[in-house]
């Protein structure tokens, strides 16, 4: 990996807490193939880090993550499936990390970006952040992230959220338990993340890991089938005339 690519996702560590940052602020940290490649490399690195017990996941700049960057792949045959499969595999790796993960949602967390937040063990945001899954509004099926949202908020809430599309405030996300911790404003976020991370890090690492492993077993997070099938379904829907027309119209705006 060259330097440019590795810079797309950065990792800083002050053992036992690490911070993984999506670092493409000029594109609101949208998930391009290059960014996902960098994310995979970092997740592979993290899987072997026994010194880190807590990982904070966040975005550089104003957004957490604006979701899939489809505009670069829409005209390339096979590219959407490649992008979506890469996202699905990244979600599986993120979930399987040995340390407890805390999504620090600093700003917009949209579609696949919101999915990444839901894959984390805990989620923190502020009242004014915008989160959600507007895929259906664009003719797209949020199939990769759906299993993770179901595992976060339960099947009933997930159905309502994914079929309604649109975005919601951090406050609403907290009331639906899509977010576990809420602070009033962005200015409060860093301090809250530090406090929660330190509190998590105070747990016995073996106890945390054993508990997380059991939870992943109980909710079948270790099974790759659903996210990978979701990538295929989502790519199929993106290839439809309906989605192509809506996505192109959106990009033209």
């Amino acid at each position, binding site marked *: 990996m060259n330097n440019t690519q590795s810079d797309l996702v950065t990792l800083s560590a002050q053992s036992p807490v690490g911070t993984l940052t999506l670092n493409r602020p000029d594109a609101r940290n949208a998930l391009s193939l290059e960014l996902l490649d960098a994310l995979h490399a970092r997740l592979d690195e993290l899987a072997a880090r026994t010194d880190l017990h807590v990982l904070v996941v966040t975005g550089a700049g104003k957004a957490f993550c604006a979701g899939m960057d489809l505009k670069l792949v829409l005209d390339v045959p096979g590219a959407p499936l490649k992008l979506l499969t890469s996202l699905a595999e990244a979600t599986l790796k993120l979930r399987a990390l040995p340390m*407890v993960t805390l999504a620090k949602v600093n700003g917009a967390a949209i579609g696949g970006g919101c999915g990444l937040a*839901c894959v984390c*063990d*805990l*989620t923190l945001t502020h009242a004014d952040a915008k989160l959600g899954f507007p895929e259906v509004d664009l003719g797209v099926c949020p199939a990769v992230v759906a299993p993770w949202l*179901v*595992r*976060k*908020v*339960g099947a009933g*809430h997930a159905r309502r959220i994914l079929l309604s599309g649109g975005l919601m405030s951090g406050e609403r996300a907290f*009331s639906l*338990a*899509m977010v*576990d911790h809420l602070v009033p404003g962005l200015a409060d976020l860093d301090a809250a993340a530090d406090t*929660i991370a330190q*509190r*998590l890090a*105070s*747990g*016995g*690492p*073996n*106890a*945390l890991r*054993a*508990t*997380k*492993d*059991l*939870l992943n*077993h*109980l*909710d079948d997070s270790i099974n790759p089938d659903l996210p990978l099938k979701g990538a295929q379904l989502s790519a199929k829907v993106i290839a439809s005339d309906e989605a192509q027309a809506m996505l192109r119209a959106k990009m033209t705006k």
Partner: protein
Amino acid sequence: MIAFEPVGSLAVLRFDRESKRNALTPRMLRDLLSTLNTCASARAIVLSGVGPIFCAGFDLAMCRDDDAVLPELLTGLSGVIRALRRDPRPVVVSAHGAAVAGGCALLGAADAVVTHAEAKLGYPVVSIGISPAVSAPTLSLMTDPGPARARLLEPALISGTRAAQIGLAHECVVTREECEPRAIALAQELAQKPPGAFAYTKRWLNTIDGSDRDETLERALRTSLELVGGPEQVQRLAALKL
């Protein structure tokens, strides 16, 4: 250490160790099981605690003094959760004051939980090197899965208000004083249901959600037991200021 009070057709069972915030001992868990069997004619069960605190969790001083106690408590807790979950009668918990760790685990066994706004609930046991895994299968059924994950991994307590928002409690009254009376009133309502239909429905729900499957509950218990006696658990418990 279990106080039994018949209230109409109900059996109100209270942890009766107020001086220790109703901290659980192996004997209390055994007594709870035997009392459930002896009150067979009761139409519904209310599980509560004498005094201002429902239950502060395991008696950690006892665990520290005797290595055999912690595994006995974990195994006993798993047994009580199964017994309450599979009891054909309505089981209602009054989670007043605090329901911590093993005390909070009991909420996952109930059909209904009443708490109050300022009660403190949670599972902060990873900080002493204990995995709350034993509680995970039933807790994960009670709340949405995400909040269950957050509660089990984060060593922190939440308010009764938040507990009701995430499904850890079904009702949240305003004050502590209202909590047990409301739990009793709710149990009285449930006790009026036709017992056969109630029992069949409860058993069917246990089948659907898997809480009648010993395999899952055994795996969860094993996960908690595997850490007992390890250096992390021993050192952290020894360092705990009690």
